[in-house]
């Protein structure tokens, strides 16, 4: 349930005139489509609830809702609803407008011509409605909100249907648990039955330092803002290039861009100035330098003296580099 449900409905009622205007405009552009005002209104309201009233503490005012409604891709939503209704005219329009785009995207992703062919057939079939629930077709079009463009939505649907994500995931292991069970794989791999008591003590000391370094990194990381965390993830673990990161922040209205950019005079005068790879590098370096000082502060808070901090960092980096995969190091089971 959306927070402030009743209040939200009241606010949406106050936007009824605007919704009617948008609907009339869409109907003028496509008078033959089979779309009722109620359906259209309901789709707009769903989108408002999905994107604008997501945070529990926040309730937008009427003006904000009106701005949001005004920014939506009305005509594309109108087409999508008509297609979901099975309107033949809308389907032919959709086909004429989007088929070449769909083919282009699919061919880029598919491994062969026959795979592309099958994927396009399956997509059309899913868009029309491959499932029938309680006597009604469930069209994929009904999941389009109209907030983003229909092209972008189609691209994501096609991409999702063709890309196989070979990765391992776990839901159950928190970082606390990781730190607790730290180095099970590491300890087993490095100790043998022939090791002396002092070897074992050395190993325990190493393990203590590894735990402290991870604990300190966790504390340091938690102090970063979400946009700083995200850029570190994209660069270090997802291995996106600076150019690729620059692409997602190049739009003047990009939220990530607004968080990072300093409001220099030049940028205030030219809000749409391009974000270059060197800018992303500077953001990364700034974030990296922030986490680096936080990390050292946290090691101090964990009771390590300056000399110990250096030893701890040296030992931890060595131990972590020896292991090819994180899963192997921690020795926990990964859900496939």
């Amino acid at each position, binding site marked *: 349930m959306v927070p402030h449900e009743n209040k939200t409905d009241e606010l949406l009622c106050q936007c009824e005139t605007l919704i009617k205007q948008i609907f009339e405009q869409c109907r003028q552009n496509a008078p033959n489509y089979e779309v009722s005002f109620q359906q259209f209104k309901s789709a707009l309201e769903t989108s408002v609830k999905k994107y604008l009233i997501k945070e529990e503490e926040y309730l937008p005012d009427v003006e904000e809702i009106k701005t949001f409604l005004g920014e939506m891709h009305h005509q594309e939503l109108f087409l999508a609803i008509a297609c979901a209704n099975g309107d033949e005219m809308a389907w032919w329009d959709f086909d004429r407008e989007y088929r070449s785009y769909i083919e282009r995207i699919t061919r880029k992703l598919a491994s062969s011509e026959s795979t592309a062919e099958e994927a396009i057939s399956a997509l059309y079939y899913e868009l*029309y409605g491959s499932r029938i629930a309680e006597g009604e077709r469930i069209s994929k079009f009904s999941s389009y909100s109209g907030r983003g463009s229909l092209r972008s939505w189609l691209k*994501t649907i096609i991409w999702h249907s063709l890309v196989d994500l070979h990765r391992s995931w776990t839901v159950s292991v928190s970082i606390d648990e990781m730190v607790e069970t730290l180095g099970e794989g590491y300890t087993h791999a490095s100790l043998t039955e022939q090791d002396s008591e002092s070897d074992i003590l050395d190993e325990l000391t190493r393990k203590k330092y590894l735990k402290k370094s991870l604990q300190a990194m*966790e504390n340091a990381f938690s102090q970063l803002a979400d946009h700083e965390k995200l850029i570190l*993830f994209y660069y270090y673990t997802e291995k996106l290039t600076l150019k690729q990161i620059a692409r997602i922040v190049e739009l003047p*209205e990009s939220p990530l861009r607004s968080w990072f950019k300093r409001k220099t005079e030049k940028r205030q005068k030219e809000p749409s100035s391009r974000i270059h790879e060197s800018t992303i590098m500077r953001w990364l370096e700034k974030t990296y330098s922030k986490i680096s000082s936080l990390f050292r502060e946290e090691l101090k808070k964990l009771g390590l003296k300056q000399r110990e901090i250096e030893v701890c960092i040296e030992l931890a980096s060595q131990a972590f580099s020896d292991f090819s995969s*994180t899963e192997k190091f921690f020795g926990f089971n990964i859900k496939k």
Partner: protein
Amino acid sequence: MKKEENERKILEFYLSALSLQIAEDEHLDEDTLATLLEGSLNQRQFRPLMKHLVECAFCRHLTAELIRFDSTLAESEEISYQSEPAKISDKVRNLLSEIFQHNVAAVEAFEDKVGEEKKERNSEGEEENQNH
């Protein structure tokens, strides 16, 4: 320099450990992913989604892969498999005609037909393999 490199290794290791974790709540749907990467949301609308991306390696990975795909698309406009450009379009056109001539029942018929075609293709492939 060496110190910085060591710290960087610890950070990378820590981040890769976090990259195994996925959120227990719902993942971002296709509409949200598309809207998010298109840059259609303002800071306030983006904030809860960004929070999810930070916590959920699965969705983060999806967005990263989509960003990679977008950048491939932008860099190269050329289309592969240009040998039979009209083949897919014809097939799709037939599909639409079939759906709208026979309505909902046609969907089921089409599904059967696609299934049959697949079977035929598979058995033809098997026969070819046997002949070889």
